[in-house]
Each structure stands twice: as structure tokens, then as C-alpha cells.
């Protein structure tokens, strides 16, 4: 694949709050911690030496707990907050070097922002809110009204234009917020905890819709969240932040499978989709299986073909699970001249879970051997190995539209 085009490059970004903030940057560069600096100088560190690229057209999620500097970081990108040091380059333009007029121009052309608590204007109707960006660009009413109406349609709020924001539910308000950002047709959507204030069901809907929308409109999205599930679901890549610094950058899969440090792995442990997903969501087809009347050599052959070190043994007529046979045992039996494998299986070593077992519980069972998923009749329906769970989790993040 070609080297992806960089849309936003963040280079050595620092944001320190307080008087004479450059002292804080010096101290950070000298290796002092956030707490030390606060104690000594009363300076609060927002972002400390963050560097990463956002590729054109991707959804990059910046994730961290509150106080990790993620909201400060996104505000530095369009300079709602003035970076203390470092550069932010958007399409070869150094945002940090722009004067007031240049900054205004780039905010109008490149960015659309969505806020955590919606930030809709209560004195304007929904349509007027959506028009806001175009209005301040001086687009005449007859031209901006159809654009705003179109944006409202995109977020599924057709016909709500004449209402005032206070008549809308939280989810609808944030749709308006999204429409307001989309109406100016920006290259980049900055979404600051955009769905965090919504209740879980609405939130899932909004996530799904944003993913669908993203594939239609092809925007670069910088998405801020404190929720790892959301990050895994939304992100093409994830930037994990702690104490103002970047801890890890990677795809959801990389984050899940190779957490960079203790901090990240603590996050990963608590992935919440494991509660939502059940065995039938993540299991693979049980292929191949050995039947009770197979001989040990047949079983060995099937294992060899599939590159397995063990195989599930089932009744041939109803696929009722009998047990699990390891290659070792099968080899011994073959040497000893055994004809059937039925009595060789080890039912105890073979962990089984019902179809509706939460993935969370499965995690602990898939340490070594694969887990068999069986239905209420005891028939084998699927197989879960450790890799399956993780792959399924990260797939969910990308494909669940």
C-alpha cells in the first residue's frame, strides 16, 4: 500500500497553563513530571510533547482518561487554545504561525467541530444553528439554506429545522451539532467527546451513523473519547494519551494485542464489548472436526491439513460433541493400532460454553486449548481460540456499520 497522505501533522506539541508557561515546557523537556511542575510552579500541564500524524480520510481516535490532555490537544489543532510550543501542520499550512485573519480562514475552510455538550445556540432554530458556519462566511440565505437543509437530512433530522434546540433530545441535539459541522463541508471533523454525553443506546446509534456517514462523505475525523470501546469501534488508528503525552499509537488490533505498557493493558482489560458480545458472535466454524468412527490416522490427517494440534470429536449424525483429541494422543493411538478414536477423547480438557456465553467469560477459558461452543442439545456449533476473540473484537471496530 502507498504511504498514506498526511492531513494533519502534530509535532512536539506542548500546552502549559499558567503564567510564563514556557518555564513548564523547559521543565518537561528536562524530564520533570506533571505533578512536580504543578507543585513547584503552579503551572498545569495540558499536553506534553505530543507528536503524531493524522492521515487523509482516516478516523483517528485520541483516547485517554480525563485530564490526559486529549481535549486540550484537539483545541490546539484549531487554536481554540494557543499551543505553548510545537507545530501543527494542516495541508502544509503551519496553523501555529497564522495571524488572526489566516486562522479565521483555516477554521472556516478546513475544520468542523462538534462539542461534548453540543454547544448549540439556544436563540437560533435548528436550521439557523446548522447555517451558522455558512452565515459567518457571508453565504447569502438563499444559498446557505439548501445546504443546511441537506446537512440536516444527512443526519436524519429532516423536517426539524424550525424547532429550537431545547425542544430536542440529547441525541437529536448532537445530530444538529454534527450537521452544523458538516454544513460547511470541512476537510476535517474535530469531535471532542461528541458522544460522551449521550446515553448508551443513542450513543451506539450515533457511532454507527457516523461510521456510515464517514464512508459516504470521506472526511478526516479527529475523534476524542475517554471510552476504549468507542475508540476501538470508531478508530482506524488510536492514539492513547496519558498525562499529556502520547503512550501508544496503533490500530485497534495493535492496541488490543500489543499494549505498549501497563497503562494501556489496564485499559484493554476492561474492554466493554466483551460484555456485549457473546460466543456466537465471535466463534468460527468448527472445521475440521473428527467423527467418532474416524480412525486415529484420519484424525491426525485432518489436524495436519488444518495445521491444528488438536481436534474436536463429534457424533457424525447430529454433531453432538464428544470431546477433544490432541495430536499427541492420536499419534500414540495410531502407533498402538487403535481403530476408533471415540474413547481417546478427553472431555475434561475440553472447555465448552453455550452460544450466549459473554465473550468476557470466555477470555479466561481460552488460555491454551480452544473452546467449543455448543447449543442446548450439546451439538458443536463453533470454535473459539484466543485469536478469534481478539480478531472479532477489532473487526467489530471496523466493519460494524
Amino acid at each position, binding site marked *: 500500500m502507498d504511504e498514506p497522505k498526511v492531513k494533519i501533522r502534530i509535532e512536539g506539541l506542548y500546552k502549559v497553563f499558567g503564567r510564563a508557561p514556557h518555564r513548564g515546557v523547559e521543565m518537561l523537556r528536562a524530564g520533570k513530571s506533571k505533578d512536580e511542575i504543578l507543585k513547584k510552579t503552579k503551572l498545569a500541564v495540558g499536553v506534553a510533547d505530543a507528536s503524531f500524524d493524522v492521515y487523509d480520510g482516516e478516523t483517528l481516535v485520541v483516547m485517554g482518561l480525563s485530564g490526559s490532555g486529549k481535549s486540550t490537544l484537539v483545541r490546539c489543532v484549531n487554536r481554540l487554545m494557543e499551543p505553548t510550543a510545537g507545530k501543527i501542520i494542516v495541508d502544509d499550512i503551519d496553523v501555529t504561525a497564522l495571524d488572526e485573519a489566516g486562522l479565521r480562514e483555516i*477554521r472556516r475552510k478546513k475544520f*468542523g*467541530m462538534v462539542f461534548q455538550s453540543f*454547544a448549540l445556540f439556544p436563540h437560533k432554530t435548528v436550521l439557523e444553528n446548522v447555517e*451558522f458556519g455558512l452565515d*459567518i462566511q457571508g453565504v447569502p440565505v438563499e444559498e446557505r439554506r439548501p445546504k443546511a437543509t441537506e446537512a440536516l437530512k444527512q443526519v436524519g433530522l429532516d423536517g426539524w429545522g424550525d424547532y429550537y434546540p431545547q425542544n430536542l433530545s440529547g441525541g437529536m441535539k448532537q445530530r444538529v451539532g454534527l450537521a452544523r459541522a458538516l454544513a460547511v463541508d470541512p476537510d476535517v471533523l474535530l469531535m471532542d467527546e461528541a458522544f460522551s454525553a449521550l446515553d448508551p443506546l443513542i450513543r451506539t446509534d450515533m457511532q454507527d451513523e457516523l461510521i456510515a456517514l464517514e464512508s459516504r462523505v470521506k472526511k478526516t475525523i479527529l475523534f476524542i473519547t475517554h471510552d476504549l470501546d468507542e475508540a476501538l469501534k470508531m478508530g482506524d488508528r488510536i492514539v492513547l494519551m496519558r498525562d499529556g503525552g502520547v503512550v501508544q499509537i496503533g490500530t485497534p488490533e495493535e492496541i488490543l494485542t500489543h499494549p505498549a505498557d501497563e497503562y494501556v493493558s489496564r485499559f484493554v482489560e476492561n474492554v466493554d464489548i466483551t460484555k456485549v458480545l457473546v460466543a456466537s458472535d465471535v466463534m468460527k466454524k468448527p472445521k475440521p472436526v473428527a467423527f467418532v468412527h474416524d480412525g486415529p490416522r484420519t484424525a491426525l490427517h485432518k489436524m495436519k491439513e488444518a495445521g491444528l494440534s488438536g481436534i474436536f470429536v463429534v457424533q457424525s449424525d447430529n454433531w453432538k460433541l464428544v470431546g477433544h483429541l490432541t495430536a499427541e494422543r492420536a499419534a500414540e493411538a495410531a502407533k498402538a493400532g487403535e481403530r476408533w478414536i471415540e474413547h481417546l477423547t478427553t472431555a475434561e480438557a475440553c472447555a465448552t460454553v453455550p452460544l450466549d456465553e459473554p465473550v468476557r467469560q470466555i477470555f479466561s477459558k481460552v488460555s491454551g486449548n480452544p473452546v467449543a461452543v455448543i447449543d442446548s442439545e450439546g451439538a458443536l456449533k463453533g470454535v473459539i481460540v484466543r485469536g478469534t476473540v481478539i480478531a472479532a473484537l477489532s473487526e467489530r471496530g471496523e466493519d460494524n456499520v
Partner: protein
Amino acid sequence: MFNIPKLPLAQWVDAALAWLTAAISPLTRAFAGFVRLGIDGIVSGLGFLPPIVLILLIGALAWWIANRRVAIFSVVGLLFIWNLGLWQPTLSTIALVLVSTLISVMIGAPLGILAGLSERFHRVVTPILDFMQTMPAFVYLIPAIPFFGLGPVAASFATVIFSIPPAIRLTSLGIRQIDKEMIEASDAFGSTRMQKLTKVQLPLALPTIMAGINQTIMLSLSMVVIAAMIGAGGLGGEVWRAIQRLRAGQGVEAGLAVVIIAMILDRITQNIAVSKKTIPS
């Protein structure tokens, strides 16, 4: 400590006032011109209408802006004042209040906007406003005389000084208390400062600004009564005359009229503020 002579503060103030009177006479003349024009215009305009017509008009206005109760109260109260024979002084009091409030808002709102936007200006202006509001109201009567002589213009000047603080304070407060995300949203889409002010800050601050104007009107009315001492005339003049002649009955009549006017003005202007706030819902 005991031998230090008294500081000649009074003399200093007198000297400063004398200098100021001369120095700003073009300004004072302009102010006087504006006030006279305003008061004469309102008094003759309102006085041109027969009282009963005017009373019904005010009633209709109260109904339109506030509600039926306020409208009924206004009509009954004004009829009562008319009946007491206080119609003319009431008109001149209302005129003086309206003109003073207009001036207060014209000066106060821009200063309030400035204080709302600039932290530095806010820090400068706050102690001045505190000072203005803790100063006894009568004190403002004194400098008004050398500038304007006795009469309604001096009264209006003192009234403006006394009633301007809430207009400034609440305009500033209204702008300051706007949710930070609103300002961020406005900035994030690339507003100029002026666009931010006119499209976001002022509309959102409007209810608070209206509350400030309401307070300014109330303070104006109270000051206009006190300013009778320097020739404001109107209902205050009636009260002042009653005090001087120890006529309790007349004093109560005029005082009651002041209260009625105060209540009508308060209810009507309060509802301007509230109705603006609730229009959207």
C-alpha cells in the same frame, strides 16, 4: 498625629469641580440640550393626548408585553393618579425617568460590553461601580448643580450617574456568563470578533441585559424623586413640597403615585426581559 491639620479634601474637590465645570462645558451643554429636548418632547407628546386615551394606551402596551393582570393594574393605578390630580407631575416624572434611562443605557451598555469582553477593563470598572453604588444618592446632587444649575437637567445628570451601574454590571455579567462552549463553537467556525458579539454574545446575554435595564429604570425612578431637591419637579417635587409644608396627606398621595408608577414600570420592563427569554421555547 494630633497636630496635623485636617486635609483640605473639600477644597480640593471644589477646585476640581470648578475646573471641570469650565473644561467640559461643551459636553455639559450638549447633555443639557439632549435632556431638555427629550423631556420636552415626551411631556408635550404625552401631554397632547387626553389622559384617558394615554391611560388606555399604556394599558394596551402592558397587556401586549406582560399580561392582563398588569394591564388592569396599570389602568386602575393611572386612573387613580389622574383622580388625585397628579397627572402633570406624573408625566414629567415618567419623562425624566425615560430620558435618564435612555442615556444610562446608551452609555452603560457599551461600557458593559467592553467590561464583558476585556478582563482588564472589568477590573478597572468594578471598583468604580462599587464606589458609585455605595455613595449616598444625595451626594450626586451636589456636582450636578455647578454643571447644570437647578432644574430637570441637573436632576437627570444625577439620576444617570446613580442608575448607570446596573446597566454596566449586568451587561458585563450577561456576556461573561455565556457557556464557554458557545464561545468556542462561535470561534471554531471562524467568527470575527464582531460576528461573535452580534450573533452569539449579545443575543445570549440579552435576558441579563434586560434585567439590568429594568434595575436601571427602578433606580432612575427612585433618584428622580430624590432629585426633586434640586428642582427635578414631577412627583418628587410634590413630595418635597409636602415635606416642606408638613402636609402629610399630600405627601402620601404623591408617594403613592410614585409607588404605582414604579410597579407599572417594573412589571412591564421585567416582562420584556422574560418574554425575550422564552420566545424560543
